[in-house]
């Protein structure tokens, strides 16, 4: 057992290294094409948000339909504090993250008393309320006209202006975010979260403080989203409330589901597939139907989404995990059996009593 674990870790580390090398080398692979780079940057930013959400959904079993609000908090905090209050960008980013965490705490306390679809509704409501604030609090946010003139982020006084620099910055954040999430998942905290997912009564009678963990993970996901929002604001230098409404929240949800919540990689994979699929359709659809506008892209995107999820109900990571397991030789034969029966959904019955 112990031995198997160590071997697995070894292989995993190796895989991670290869991944990191590819990631760092990507800019050269794409010949410094800034358009591709900016696509990658966007993937990275979305990945941050959806990694936080993956933790929240996959490991704590809580759906959030208002995540874009935190993304917005980060973006507006950075925008306002750097452009109008003259703060250094890093401080503004940190302040945004703290603010997002605080908002998550304040919102989370009442919201997490609710369950299931009530919870979904409450997060949706939170999203709508925040959107209204972004829209109406014109002195701070510039209202629907948007917020202009956000300065670029600076490292040691040097502004990061090229896509290449930004790509590395975002990658760093994504890697750190994944590492952090990965550590949480395989710790006491991660187990507690999954336990909550499985049975709240049982978890709590084993000493898991359900409210505390739900709140903490909600705050964490808010911090992820907020950081991504701050980075986005500095990158594009113009933001407006439409970026942080309900529709973007739903897009984040789509990314998480495409990626699957079976592992912390789901967020990154989901974001990548989501963005690439969109870009790919943009290139392919006009070839198939030369006279069509963007509407065909929506039809195809919807169709692909449906088909993909029918065949991969656990998202891409769900499929990949099975392959990976085999590759990592984890747990030997027995593990294979588990993987094999996983498709068979054993309904947890008797969840009604405790």
């Amino acid at each position, binding site marked *: 057992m112990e031995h198997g674990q160590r071997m697995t870790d070894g292989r995993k580390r190796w895989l991670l290294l290869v991944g990191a090398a590819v990631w760092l080398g990507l800019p050269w692979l794409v010949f410094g094409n800034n358009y591709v780079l900016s696509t990658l940057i966007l993937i990275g930013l979305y990945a941050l948000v959806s990694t936080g959400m993956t933790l929240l959904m996959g490991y704590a079993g809580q759906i959030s339909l208002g995540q874009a609000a935190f993304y917005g908090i980060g973006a507006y905090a950075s925008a306002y504090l750097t452009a109008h209050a003259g703060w250094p960008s890093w401080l503004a980013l940190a302040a945004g993250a703290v603010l997002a965490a605080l908002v998550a705490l304040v919102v989370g306390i009442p919201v997490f008393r609710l369950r299931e679809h009530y919870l979904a509704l409450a997060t949706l409501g939170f999203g709508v309320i925040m959107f209204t604030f972004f829209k109406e609090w014109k002195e701070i946010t510039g209202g629907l006209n948007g917020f202009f003139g956000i300065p670029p982020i600076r490292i040691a006084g040097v502004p990061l202006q090229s896509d290449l620099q930004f790509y590395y910055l975002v990658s760093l954040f994504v890697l750190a975010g994944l590492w952090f999430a990965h550590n949480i998942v395989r710790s006491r905290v991660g187990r507690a979260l999954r336990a909550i997912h499985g049975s709240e009564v049982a978890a709590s009678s084993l000493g898991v403080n359900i409210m505390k963990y739900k709140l903490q993970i909600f705050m964490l996901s808010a911090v992820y989203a907020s950081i991504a929002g701050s980075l986005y604001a500095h990158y594009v230098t113009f933001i407006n409330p439409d970026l942080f409404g309900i529709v973007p929240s739903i897009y984040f949800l789509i990314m998480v589901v495409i990626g699957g919540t079976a592992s912390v990689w789901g967020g990154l994979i989901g974001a990548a597939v989501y963005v690439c699929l969109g870009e790919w359709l943009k290139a392919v659809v006009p070839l198939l139907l030369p006279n069509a506008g963007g509407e065909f892209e929506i039809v195809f995107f919807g169709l692909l989404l449906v088909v993909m999820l029918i065949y991969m109900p656990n998202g891409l990571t769900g499929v990949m995990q099975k392959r990976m397991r085999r590759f990592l030789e984890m747990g030997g034969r027995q593990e*294979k*059996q588990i993987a*094999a*029966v996983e*498709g068979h959904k054993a309904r947890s*019955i008797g969840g009604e*009593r405790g």
Partner: protein
Amino acid sequence: MLVLRNVHVYHGHLHVLKGVSLQVDEGKIVTVVGANGAGKSTLLGTIAGVYAPTEGEILFEHKPLPYGKVEQIVEKGICLVPERRQIFDSLSVRDNLLLGAYRRHRRDGQEVKRDYERVLELFPKLQTMLDRPGGLLSGGEQQMLAIARGLMARPKLLLLDEPSLGLAPLVVKEVMGMLTQLCDQFQTAMILVEQNVRAALQTADEAYVLERGSIVVHGKAAELLADERVAEAYLGAAGRR
């Protein structure tokens, strides 16, 4: 009326039933006993259509069953009272019972009503809680409800997966007695899976012992009850107390 020949069932890659053959005659109670994980629940599930066998055949009244098609099998008169009760939590006890007879409402509404009265007589405890959501009952009450709901279907073949689970000793005795009575009165055949091996053997006509997916012993229930090996393996040492 029910014949299984060389039935194999897999859960994923796990070979759970390895060539089980078994026979149930009209109006007879057959019991299947065996250790945890032997495959008893899987066996009942297969007959009821929850799982499909990969090999072998199952004949009911001389015709093969539509494997894996639960609804059609119910229509043919086979009813499973499953492991873990499977109550409809948020429906009232009354609705739970009436749903048991779902397939019969259209045909014989009057008879369903009579059965309903009769079932409640068998479990007077339920009578006092007809409007309570099923999920709020105590464990044992739910078990009674599950059995009663199975009876409401008035099947030709009743499959019972550990019906005595969580029932108080007095009630176990009543239930077992009731099963025998039912069998005599309506010619209902039954397969009874039980951990309470003694009670099962006392109730049943025939018995099978399932071990790791294969039938290892088969005989008259009374004979098995007397069999020393069985006593040792499944009844626990009698001397304890």
